[in-house]
């Protein structure tokens, strides 16, 4: 199939039909900031940092789109750092920094865009969660469990297990804590116990090296899902 020809910041590049703009930009070395993007999950366009300005003819009418889920097409003209784009990115970063001043990585990213001190009063009650939704999506799309979701709506929106009670379906895999970009989700381990989202899991000991490596509940779930006998799963990934 013929390649699509698109122009990014004045440079001609090629793309495949069905590709999203963000991927095309990054592959060609154009830096686009994101906070809610992960290649492993479906893009949802929550953070709005990846916006770009597009038009179909030089000097024509432009539009701001979220590049993470904008499907490219032949002849597209893209600006990755136009005035409008910068206005949206700076606004988003300033709003987020005011909401989550402690979020890991956020002050550094905001500083890259010249934002060090938000013009809004700093919040203290949202923790480090910027509501990127990666934990929810990873749990659903990658792990296949759906222990996490969104609670409430709008400014009171939160991520977590239903009713913020320990979830009966959570397997304690910790994937949510792993993908969380800001360090909001806390997972702790002590001895043979792992704690996450208010639920405590007993850990299994590796048959070979003897270290605690995974919740028993998770291994049972994997065994049921794959048909591999539980005993065979009792070896940690390093010793397999």
């Amino acid at each position, binding site marked *: 199939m013929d390649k699509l020809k698109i122009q990014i910041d004045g440079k001609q590049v090629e793309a495949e039909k069905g590709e999203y703009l963000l991927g095309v930009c990054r592959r060609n070395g154009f830096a686009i900031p994101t906070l809610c993007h992960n290649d492993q999950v479906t893009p949802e366009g929550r953070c709005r940092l990846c916006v770009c300005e597009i038009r179909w003819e030089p000097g024509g009418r432009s539009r701001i789109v979220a590049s993470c*889920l904008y499907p490219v097409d032949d002849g597209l003209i893209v600006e990755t750092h136009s005035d409008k784009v910068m206005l949206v990115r700076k*606004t988003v970063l300033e709003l987020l920094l005011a909401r989550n001043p402690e979020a890991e990585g956020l002050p550094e990213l905001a500083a890259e865009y010249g934002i060090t001190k938000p013009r809004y*009063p700093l919040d203290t009650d949202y923790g480090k969660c910027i*509501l990127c939704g990666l934990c929810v999506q990873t749990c659903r799309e990658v792990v296949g469990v759906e222990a996490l979701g969104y609670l409430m709506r*709008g400014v009171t929106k939160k991520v977590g297990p239903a009713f913020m009670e320990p979830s009966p379906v959570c397997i304690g895999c910790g994937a949510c804590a792993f993908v969380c970009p800001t360090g909001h989700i806390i997972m702790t381990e002590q001895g043979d116990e792992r704690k996450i989202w208010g639920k405590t899991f007993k850990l299994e000991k590796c048959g070979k090296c003897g270290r605690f490596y995974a919740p028993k509940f998770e291994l049972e779930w994997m065994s049921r899902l794959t048909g591999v006998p539980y005993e065979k799963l009792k070896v940690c990934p390093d010793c397999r």
Partner: protein
Amino acid sequence: MDFKALQEKSRREYQARLNSEVPVIYVGAATCGLAAGAGELLKMLPSELSALKLKAEVVPVGCIGPCCFEPLVDIQKPGKPRICYKQVTPRILKTLLQDCLVNDNLHPELALGIVGEGPAFRGIDGIPLLFDHQMLKGQMRVALRNCGYIDPTRIEDYIARGGYIGLEKAFRMKPEEIIDWIKKSGLRGRGGGGFGTARKWDSVRKAEGSVKYILCNGDEGDPGAFMDRSTMESDPHSVIEGQLIAAYAISSGKARAEGYIYVRNEYPLAVKNLALALEQARQYGFLGKNILGSGFDFELRINRGGGAFVCGESSALMRSLEGKAGEPRQKYIHASDKGLWEQPTNLNNVETYACVPEIINRGPEWFAGIGTKGSKGTKVFSLVGKVNYTGLVEVPMGVTLRDMVVKIGGGIRGGKKVKAVQTGGPSGGVIPESLFDLQVDFDELARVGSMMGSGGMIVMSEEDCMVDVALYYVKFLEQESCGKCVPCREGLRRMKNILSRITEGKGAMEDVALLYELGQAMQIGSLCGLGQSAPNPVLSTIKYFRKEYEQHILEKKCCAGVCTALISYSIDPQTCNGCHLCEIHCPTGAAKGEKKKPHVINQELCIKCGICCDVCRQDAVLKK
């Protein structure tokens, strides 16, 4: 029964009611009427009639529009036209039954007008025609054609007034031809955006898919807007027929069609009347298999919405229909290609569908002959706020705002000065008096920074504070934002805080600049229409009423006397006669004084509720 026979039966029954040997009493019993007291009237009618030993037919009808005159009761005596009476209390109803039905006093002073058209209905006993009333004169009924005339719970009433003729005609046309007619008519979506209806239908028709979903958006949620509720309650079949025609035009010969009407659950009467209408339509063969012998199959169901404003946004509505949380989705791939359950989906608003049968029935040229160059036909507005006559009005596109306010609305209550009109609900903007000569249509409203929206029109007077108005809408939207994307969720919260600060007299001039900058970013950066249009109330008030912002910030003054932190009440000792009323009513004991001597207000205790001002008969309480 075939369609012809059903039509004849329906017309016969309808005529029989018009020429009834016994009096017919019509009670406007849509939600608006019920709220004004029509329920009580309906309840007392049987016993009152039997006490007077009178036989009469009681027909609950929908809403004819003039809310300010509700409850409305129409009385039709044998050989006399149907006379509409306004603001009927139980006491007035008793008087009317006695004087009008038993004796022959028609009480012209209580009447609003004669319902009906044509020479047969001219000037009876000094009662004018209803549609000669100032509020109704400039109106033209297309979408509301049956509202208030028919009993919405009887399909026969709808059919008698020309119902389902459009559908029957459509079945004799090619689907492409129907879409072409809609295109020629110039019909644009009444839900707010004003997208060409034919263009939408055509793309859904052309999209690949084994099933085509035909949806109706009845999730009307703008504060102060109620045209869709009234249509669904008062004339549910007009919506169903429109949707049937759309389904046939879009899917026939291409795919299977299925439909849903998405109605908010806060509209229980609309849900009830629609459900009943669907049942009757099914019973008479307008839904189901081989409709009217055309070979076309279509099924239509109701889906109740759980009360989220954002679910009126098309992609959120579809997620909600799927049983998921109502979060909008980015629409780079249109719903016409991948909508509900990833299938080609057509979503139109209640009013859009209600117009369709008339267009098919009377031809596209007729519809295109009404309105302005870019916006054809009529539009229903809910005209509310500080005008004398409030209610639903349907006017040709292109009527000026001034005519809406002065003629149809009857001017401002209490002779106050008009300040602005807010159109388009929370997504719209405020239009100042200086622009009142603009012709109301999709493009003109957008040009001045507002929008048509679904048709809310709130008239504001000198007693409305524009900063407070902006704050009201921002508060509403902050509550209703789904919270998915950052600019809308966080931006609205910050806008609210800044605006609150300004109304409390704690604002700075930088705040206005920040509001403007934030608004610009939200408009281009938000994910869905809710966030993109959310700054409109703020940006339009800054654009046209910057002075009021400056007054709040620099002079710490609210000229409308709305922002309580910036006003104070005092008593003019020259005017006060010491009647004591203010002291009796003051909830905090701030207003005090000896009898027959001037009273004073203790500013420490005053909570600025304004009750003293309302109760004072001497106008001695001053608001500054």
